[in-house]
């Protein structure tokens, strides 16, 4: 079986769980001998671009192809595009302007319209147009590929998925890792919502990451439950991190928030709980690792609550820094307001850090050995944080059983479920 997969991000170009999920899933499919062509947008100015070798960077189709050594059945095709996950149209506009400015600096003058690597003409002025430009380029790419099924990850790739599926007359699977309601609460962007719904309606099968997300898809997008299947995410086990001790001699407990600091992740509930914990205990620090549009607000809020000296902001962490922060942490807290899945708690447990997760999350469907709270119940979050910090047997039991539980979650099982859904979609056609 051969799959034409459309995504937005892939390690090392990641800003969140989507890239991690795509990596885990395709890696497992590779082991199942499923051939995957993974098509992804890539900003040329990404400072991590050197991590991958581009085989054909000057291609006239604006597409480049490369392979990971480890993944023999997966081919990557990149399309020059500033598409970034978790973007808003405003942020997109800023990025375009920033890229153009850098370009100007690099070339010491105005941007040349004939620049063959980075032609300004290739970039549309707004995000909506860009999503469709990506679709057109993906279609161009797909024309020269053989495949049985089209699999599109999250809304930015749905228009591309629809075009490719129409052209090739192959079944379309859309994979919903998050929805506009998760990201934006009730203030949904109508354009994004429309693209999401169109993708789900057109799809032969919708795969989503939890029953929690499935409910949203059915109730908010009006999609028939019959075609919405749940495939829970898994976690890529580490253990190959040759880490020396962090070197930090800690006599303080560390409670960790790791994720984008945005409305969806509930940073204010983390800080509210921190305030309550600090009323009872003193030797605790709260670390917020991540960045996002509420970062400044969170710094201000910590100050307003009078706990500024107890809350540390690290900015966005990746790779070994993430491992380091897990090594230091006594507890991980995910107070997400609406979390379709949430891979980070699995990573925390993989690093022997016990977790408190919100009941409004998909990951709470697969984790039994976790403390679960309603995201708004700041009192209960604080109650549970204190208990974990105060009673070593609790911390130990949660970490041990949780780690064991995480070992049972394997991407191979998730990939197998996807393949089964492919087969159903192919039979139906």
């Amino acid at each position: 079986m051969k799959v034409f997969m459309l995504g937005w991000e892939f390690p090392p170009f990641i800003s969140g769980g989507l890239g991690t999920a795509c990596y885990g899933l395709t890696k497992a499919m590779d082991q199942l001998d499923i051939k995957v062509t993974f098509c992804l947008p890539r900003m040329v100015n990404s400072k991590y671009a050197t991590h991958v070798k581009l085989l054909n960077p000057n291609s006239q189709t604006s597409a480049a192809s490369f392979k990971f050594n480890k993944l023999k059945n997966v081919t990557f095709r990149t399309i020059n595009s500033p598409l970034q996950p978790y973007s808003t149209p405003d942020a997109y506009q800023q990025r375009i302007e920033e890229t153009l400015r850098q370009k100007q600096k690099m070339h010491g003058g105005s941007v040349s319209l004939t620049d063959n690597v980075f032609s300004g003409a290739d970039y549309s002025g707004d995000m909506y147009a860009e999503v469709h430009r990506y679709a057109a380029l993906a279609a161009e790419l797909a024309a020269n590929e053989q495949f049985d099924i089209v699999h599109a990850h999250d809304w930015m790739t749905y228009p591309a998925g629809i075009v490719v599926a129409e052209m090739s007359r192959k079944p379309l699977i859309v994979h919903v890792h998050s929805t506009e309601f998760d990201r934006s609460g009730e203030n949904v962007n109508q354009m994004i919502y429309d693209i999401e719904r169109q993708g789900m309606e057109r799809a032969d099968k919708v795969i989503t990451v939890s029953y929690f997300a499935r409910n949203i898809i059915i109730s908010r997008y009006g999609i028939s439950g019959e075609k919405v299947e749940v495939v829970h995410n898994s976690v890529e086990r580490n253990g190959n991190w040759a880490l020396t001790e962090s070197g930090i001699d800690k006599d303080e407990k560390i409670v960790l928030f790791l994720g984008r600091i945005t409305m969806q992740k509930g940073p204010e509930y983390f800080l509210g709980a921190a305030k309550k914990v600090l009323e009872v205990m003193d030797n605790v620090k709260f670390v917020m690792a991540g960045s996002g549009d509420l970062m400044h607000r969170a710094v201000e809020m910590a100050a307003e609550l009078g706990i500024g000296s107890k809350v540390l902001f690290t900015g966005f962490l990746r790779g070994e820094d993430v491992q380091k922060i897990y090594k230091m942490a006594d507890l991980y807290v995910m107070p997400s307001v609406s979390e379709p899945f949430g891979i980070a708690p699995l990573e925390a447990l993989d690093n022997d850090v016990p977790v408190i997760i919100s009941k409004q999350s998909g990951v709470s469907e697969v984790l039994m050995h976790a403390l679960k709270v309603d995201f708004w119940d700041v009192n209960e979050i604080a109650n549970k944080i204190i208990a974990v910090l105060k009673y070593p047997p609790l911390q130990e039991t949660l970490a041990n059983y949780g780690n064991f539980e995480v070992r049972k979650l394997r991407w191979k099982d998730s990939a197998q479920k996807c393949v089964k859904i492919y087969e159903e979609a192919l039979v139906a056609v």
Partner: protein
Amino acid sequence: MASICFYFQVHQPLRLRHYTVFDKNDQYFDDYKNGSICRKVANKCYLPANRLLLDTIRRFKGRFKIAYSITGVLLEQLQRYSPEVISTFDALAETGCVEFLAETYYHSLSFLYSQDEFVEQVNKHSKTIESLFGQKPKVFRNTELIYNNDLARLIESMGSFEAIITEGADHILGYRSPNFVYRPKDCSKLKLLLKNYSLSDDIAFRFSNRDWSQWPLTADKFAQWVNSVNGNGNVVNLFMDYETFGEHQWKDTGIFDFMRHLPEQILKHPDNDFKTPSEIAQSFQPVGTVDVPHLISWADTERDLSAWLGNAMQSNAIHELYRLEKEIKKANDEKIIADWRKLQTSDHFYYMCTKYFADGDVHKYFNPYDSPYDSYINFMNVLGNLQSRCSRQTIASA
């Protein structure tokens, strides 16, 4: 000759209310929940089962007999929420065909942690039974049938008991049968009655299981299994939770009808009869000694203590609880002592069990918590408050 001995365990714990580290008052128990569960179980089980058994006893004019062990924590709740249940138990006591057994008043694991506390609780329970039902218990059963040689020795030394009851676990009996009376190792007078877990569980667990090859279980069929014991056993000890009737096995499974017809089917065979545990002890001589150096119980397939003490949280919670004993008794405040004892009920530790948590099963029954972790946190918060009350009291009285 096979004597059938029915003994029913009757117990409901006092469940804790949601108690956070920020709570400061001394109201630990969820009166609303405890009241409603008590009334619910009374209506579904205690009242209809008592009525049925009372009718049956009257119908057989002394040939049908049963025994109960009712915990002190349940008796207190019944007096408060469902006093009519107490009067039906009293009516049963008056028939002369019903025996009441002794246990720890608080359904506690105190035997494992404090002998003094254990003896106090057993005496308190016996006194309560005597005052309510007019008979002094002569047979002892420990919480969850937890047992070893030391327990038997202690019970014999207390002087008031003729027999002790435990699980007829395979690993203590080996090739031997639970259908005889034995003597505990190192005891000279006390007799040991062993639960026939196979026949007991046919009623208590398998009765409504449609995947069981013997389903549906009829009184007639069960009586034939009992008859087959004739010739290779003296007794058939059927020990089970009373909540089997109407709660674990719902009324629509036919469990009440089964029980209504069973005595008649059993008594059809001229060699069968019904006896209470103390009558069994008086009627039969021990056929051998049973040595139980390690603790056993009637729980799960392991028949050990892992359901209450199997993980670090359980062991921590119970050690912390009994570590307070001296301080609590020194504070000498009745309310504090009573709260401390109510926290000893084994159910609090059972709720913290992680053994089958992921699969979900019998451990979930009546469990007021979403997870074992929540139950540990709640318990430790309450214990923390109790400890600070105790310290304040000690300082105040010093």
